């Protein structure tokens, strides 16, 4: 899902992913997910492979990618940190949390820190609405986040950087 894969771009791997999925009905989203799960983003080169395989124009594929918030066309940092901006989390301090996150990381939403450890993204609801404010990193959800616990989380992500994948 949103856990960024670490694989470097490889057109052969991408081609194999596309071949495996292209005959599914409505194959484009499954293919885009599989590519992003593998390479952490959808490079322009992938669009050039997907379009002919599905008999679409590159503009059509690009149009689908750009419609959905989840898909990204730039390599993210090692960790994608998503902060819930929705109402239930607002009621539990999410506005202060997002302001703190942007200030402490020195980036706005969709930005990546200079050390490439963290890409910050907004998200609208993680379904953890009784125990906000909520943050997602990869497939982990964190509950009752405060600016302090956010800093601890980011510290732990930064020190994990050398962990063997």
């Amino acid at each position: 899902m949103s856990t960024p894969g670490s694989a470097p771009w490889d057109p052969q791997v991408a081609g194999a992913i596309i071949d495996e999925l292209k005959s599914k009905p409505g194959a484009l989203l499954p293919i885009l997910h599989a590519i992003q799960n593998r390479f952490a983003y959808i490079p322009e080169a992938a669009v050039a492979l997907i379009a002919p395989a599905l008999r679409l124009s590159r503009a059509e594929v690009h149009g689908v990618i750009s419609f959905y918030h989840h898909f990204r066309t730039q390599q993210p940092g090692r960790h994608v940190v998503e902060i819930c901006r929705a109402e239930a989390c607002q009621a539990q301090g999410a506005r202060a949390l997002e302001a703190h996150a942007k200030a402490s990381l020195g980036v706005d939403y969709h930005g990546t820190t200079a050390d490439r450890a963290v890409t910050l993204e907004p998200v609208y609801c993680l379904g953890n609405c009784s125990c906000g404010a909520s943050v997602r990193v990869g497939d982990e959800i964190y509950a009752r986040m405060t600016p302090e616990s956010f800093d601890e989380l980011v510290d732990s992500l930064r020190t994990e950087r050398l962990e063997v994948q």
Partner: protein
Amino acid sequence: MATRIYIPSDTTAKALGADRVARLIETKAKEQGVELNIVRNGTRALYWLDPLIEVDTPDGRFGYGPVTVKDVDSLFEAEFFNGETAHPLALGLVEEIPYLKRQQRLTFARAGVTDPLSLEDYQAHDGYKGLRNALNLDAQSIVDAVKASGLRGRGGAAFPTGIKWQTVLDAGSEGEQKYIVCNADEGDSGTFADRLVMECDPFMLIEGMTIAGLAVGATQGYIYLRSEYPLADKNLNAAIETAYANNLLGEDILGSGRHFDLEVRIGAGAYICGEETSLLESLEGKRGLVRAKPPLPAIVGLFGQPTVVNNVLSLAAVPFILDKGAQAYADCGMGRSRGTLPFQVAGNVKQGGLVELAFGPTLRELMFEFGGGTRNGRPLRAVQVGGPLGAYLPESQWDTPLDYEAFSKVGAVLGHGGVVMFDDTVDMGEQARFSMEFCVAESCGKCTPCRIGSTRGVEVIDRIRSGQNVDANLELLSDLCETMLDGSLCAMGGMTPFPVQSAMKYFGEDFVKNASDAQALAEEA
């Protein structure tokens, strides 16, 4: 015999540390030579008590919670695994906790009771009885049962489910491909009941969809699941695999010769894809642009074929109806709102969680008798019911009964049953601005009132809040809201004004206060 203990495993319990607690208890038990059989159940969704650990005893399941890793040593010292102890986290028998005992859990009867991925558990708790009954009925009789239950779509629009099914049953010619699509794009803030079904009781959804397939003659189902729910994805896929391995899905369901296939498809972070026609476009691999209706998806749906599009909770209610009978379901509720609605109490709440109730109690009872008021103890000021497109209710409306029609009468919606509570520090001008901002971010862009209206809405609210021509701009905002209400293609643009208008009507002082502060500031400068 090893003592069986239960440690919850849904997203919120995990986010509160349930996995760490489980690992520590396992290690500790080994060290001390205590034989434990640890079952990872779903969750009871009494979230202020999570992680809620339950110990099987002859009298029932004894609870401890909320358990953190720091409590594990003292729990072992107290020998919690023997059941009842005097440990400070001891809660008594879980089923006797008033928050749970006072609920009417029909759809969520198994949540937190069973291991979500155990087919044996599911079947031991009435699972697949509904499907077995349905296999002995003809299609029309299944549709009739759902009609008789009074079940209305739980996604928010509350359209009678049986009538939708009838339309699909009657559509197309003999043998035409039809589809069952489950809308699991639960994007409303404050809602998590769909997630709970998929994480804690996935077989129930699979069974409900299979029955729907039998009812309308569809052989293929898709669950359109939002990408924000990774654990639901994992559990659904594991349960689907088990169902196939046990002839509960596939070409010959339980030897009946009936065919139903099921696949999970993942969305990609677009709120609008919770709108059924946008969802179908997305399933077809396109941008999630809303379709004009008619034609209804029931007649021209996925890939142009007749399609049932139902919310998770609607489909999840079906096994109960086919097992216990339509009347058992219809016996709950009030007026035209039959059965139960799983309410989700969220935001600034002391006792947040899932509260499944028959329609009828008041919002105030839900927020105070169950919710216990705000988490930080400040006075409650505003409540948003029904997601980001639902109205904010002031205290004067908290005695409204939880019923589709009663909410509609006060200009509000019950929607998917999400209740988001805000304390008195909330700035309702800011909340109104957010509603418009959210619409800017999530509008599919097909119709002008929604795409452009929302952007203009943010600008006008900013002008009001900064004290520019306040009266004229308030009038302009009212006018804009009317335009969006009347002119939008779907509920996204058509309902975004609900929270804005309710904020203006009942919390107008927040707009003006901010404006007068801004004016005073400007005059000083």
